[in-house]
């Protein structure tokens, strides 16, 4: 190689000192969790738990620590713990977040961190809600490919541009953070909610799909896209960074101009 780059021998290198990187210190962090145990409690109530955490710990770590060390009755959903399965959406300091993607260093720990179940779905226990109404709305928008014509012998070809059209909405993990952050959904459970519209968007704008008319018809309903008040809570809540409100607006546009 005839480059000008000089690589110094390793023996000449002084030990690397990173002056600005202190050793992580565990700090006591207080969590104020909205508890509800239907066998014992009439009403949900708040309880405080203090655990020692590193800044790089997640809220999920804290919940697991509380469950293991302080109160084994604390109930919450978790599965993968890495922001893929969408099980641990909850309201952290009043905002819908995945507990496994929220780091302690990103929260103000001078005050207790409030953690409660997502709003608008029936509360079952502690941080666990009944997700059935959410999935019922999801199923109603036909969230699967509806092909047209004969089954091709090869794959269904799609151009990169056509694929990009709905790329954003393929990222949904059905955690319900968006739907349960929507003020319209809080007061009216019949509203389909952002997640179902995102799921519909994923197929409406797919060039291989032929079921758009049926899906648009569902979303043109009284409880469909027209209930959206564009408050952007859903976009803010989405742990996958999907531009949910934009997707809803695109569905509205498709309905108004009658084209996909």
């Amino acid at each position, binding site marked *: 190689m005839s480059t000008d780059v000089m690589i110094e021998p390793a023996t000449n290198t002084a030990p690397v000192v990173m002056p600005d990187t202190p050793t992580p210190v565990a700090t006591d962090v207080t969590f104020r969790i909205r508890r509800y145990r239907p066998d014992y409690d009439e009403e949900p109530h708040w309880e405080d738990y203090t655990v020692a955490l590193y800044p790089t710990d997640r809220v999920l770590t804290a919940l697991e620590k509380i469950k293991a060390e302080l109160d084994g009755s604390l109930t919450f959903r978790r599965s993968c713990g890495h922001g893929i399965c969408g099980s641990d959406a909850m309201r952290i300091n009043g905002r819908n977040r995945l507990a496994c993607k929220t780091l302690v260093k990103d929260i103000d720990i001078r005050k207790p961190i409030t953690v409660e179940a997502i709003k608008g779905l029936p509360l079952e226990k502690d941080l666990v809600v009944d997700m059935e109404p959410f999935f019922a709305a999801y199923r109603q928008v036909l969230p699967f490919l509806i092909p047209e014509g004969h089954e091709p012998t090869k794959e269904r070809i799609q151009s990169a541009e056509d694929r990009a059209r709905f790329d954003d909405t393929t990222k949904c993990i059905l955690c319900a953070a968006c739907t349960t952050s929507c003020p319209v959904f809080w007061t009216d459970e019949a509203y389909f909610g952002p997640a179902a519209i995102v799921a519909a968007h994923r197929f409406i704008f797919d060039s291989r799909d032929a*079921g758009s008319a049926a899906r648009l018809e569902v979303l043109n309903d009284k409880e469909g896209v*027209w209930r959206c008040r564009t408050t952007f809570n859903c976009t803010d809540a989405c742990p996958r960074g999907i531009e949910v409100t934009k997707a809803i607006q695109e569905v509205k546009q498709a309905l108004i101009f009658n084209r996909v």
Partner: protein
Amino acid sequence: MSNPLAAPRAGSRNKQRSNFELYGWLFMRISGLILVFLVLGHLFIMNILDGGVQRINFAFVAGRWSSPFWQVWDLSMLWLALLHGGNGMRTIINDYAERDQTRFWLKMLLYVSTAIIIALGTLVIFTFDPSIG
């Protein structure tokens, strides 16, 4: 081959496609835009161009409503504002009134009062008699 699936919710409700909510949504956007122009224009003309609010009295109003231009302006402002506001209230009732009975009666109250105000306002604009002053 057409879509082999039965139309969703077929049989239970929405037997035919209704675009009511679509048109309602569109109406809110369009009337809102027109109202910005009409209302701000109204305020600007009344309070600044025409010499301030203290000049407005019976004769002033009589003079304005003798012109078809102001009749149309005020009439469109009346209709658009009430329909726009009424539709907004309808949405809010749909959002917050949970029981069907409450929803129904609140909406009836809303529709009746909106209709009365629109009718009264329209009547006044068209039958205004400057000689009663």
